[in-house]
């Protein structure tokens, strides 16, 4: 089985992705992560204005069978929360890199080189 790993993002070993614009990033979970979890039924996220640290657990995603912590790939301030995933958590399964995004952040210290490249992440999940 092969999983989608878009080239325009960076990744964490714990299966979160971030876009790489220094002014504003979106974060979410990877295709591999949603497949491992199975049917996502619940997402818990921080509020707009909250400060996150890179590597910090910032929320929870639950599927029918499992509970998984969400880890932030960047430090920064939450500028938007995808509230659609509260009513329709299956968006994480259907479109993990698109409509299933989780947060937008204004990075405080954008350093995307510290994260896994698409090649590095692909190698990890192979």
């Amino acid at each position, binding site marked *: 089985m092969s999983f989608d790993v878009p080239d325009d993002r960076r990744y964490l070993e714990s299966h979160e992705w971030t876009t790489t614009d220094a002014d504003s990033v979106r974060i979410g979970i990877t295709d591999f992560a949603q497949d491992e979890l199975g049917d996502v039924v619940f997402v818990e996220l921080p509020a707009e204005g909250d400060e996150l640290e890179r590597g910090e657990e910032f929320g929870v995603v639950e599927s*029918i069978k499992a509970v998984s912590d969400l880890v932030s790939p960047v430090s920064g301030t939450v500028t938007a929360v995808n509230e659609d995933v509260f009513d329709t958590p299956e968006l994480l399964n259907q479109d993990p890199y698109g409509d299933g995004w989780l947060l937008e952040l204004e990075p405080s210290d954008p350093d995307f080189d510290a994260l896994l490249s698409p090649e590095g992440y692909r190698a990890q999940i192979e």
Partner: protein
Amino acid sequence: MPVEFDSIRTEHTAVRESAGIFDVSHMSEIRVSGPDATVLMNRLVTNDVQELDVGDTQYACITDSDGIILDDTMVFRLPDDEDGPQYLFVPNAGHDVEMYTRWTEYRDERGFDATVHDATEEWGMLALQGPDAPQLADDATEGRATDIDRFEAGFLDVAGVRCYVSRTGYTGEDGFEFLVPWADVETVWSAFDCQPCGLGARDTLRLEMGFLLSGQDFDPETEPRTPYEAGVAWTVDLGTEFVGRDALERADREGVEERFRGVKLQQRGVPREGYEVVDSDGDHLGHLTSGTMSPTLGEPIGLGYLSEAAPSGTRVRVVVRGEPKQATVVTPPFIDT
């Protein structure tokens, strides 16, 4: 058996709306025969096996001398042999050696004349479940499967394989369980064209019905419970002399402090094993032993042991990662099947 073949939701819905098949070969099988087979069975299970005619099935608990459930099981009365009644019972996964030892030690202590045979390595087990299961089973048995009534059993050929077939299951739906010689499991599995289902859907299906899961909703070490606490008092026949009877007679007389109940969350979240249940003041009422998002209802449901002070209909809180979430106590099943 894998946790899922497709997705738990897909598999679950297939069983509720059409049919699904599960490989439950992890279950144990123990056969008891000989002149004292009936008395040996009746000393070690809570129900009265004397009520069984050939081809009947019965749900029962196996308790210790304190009335604590060690395991739960289906008991089948097989066709008699020259010595009289024969029984087969189906302990849960990993319990076969423990139960074989329990049966043979008790037999030897009492000098009973009975043969106890652990057949776990000889038999696989498949469960065909769902509203379309009777038709699928009939198609594979020249129409003979539906001659078997609910909670009865008999021998049938499926794809040329002799199986012991019971009209039982763990999903709340109509369906059949097939005991199949180990080498022929794949042949019988392939005889049914329906959704393959894994352990994940097996769990969500039984949760919606409020069926107990051995080792989770009761466990002699981590969750010691009597059949009265576990809501299966109907499996206890105090008119027989089984191990644990006297303790259970006292429990019946004195009542229980906590009872197995369901909860439905009114707020977003997923109830899970180990979560505390409190009242509106935050005072402890009990804890959950199982929980999930019900695929049928789209609502979060849980099972666990709650104080008798919180009967069905009580507004409670389930503590999810430190946050009390509103919930209501219900008596399972959560759905009508």
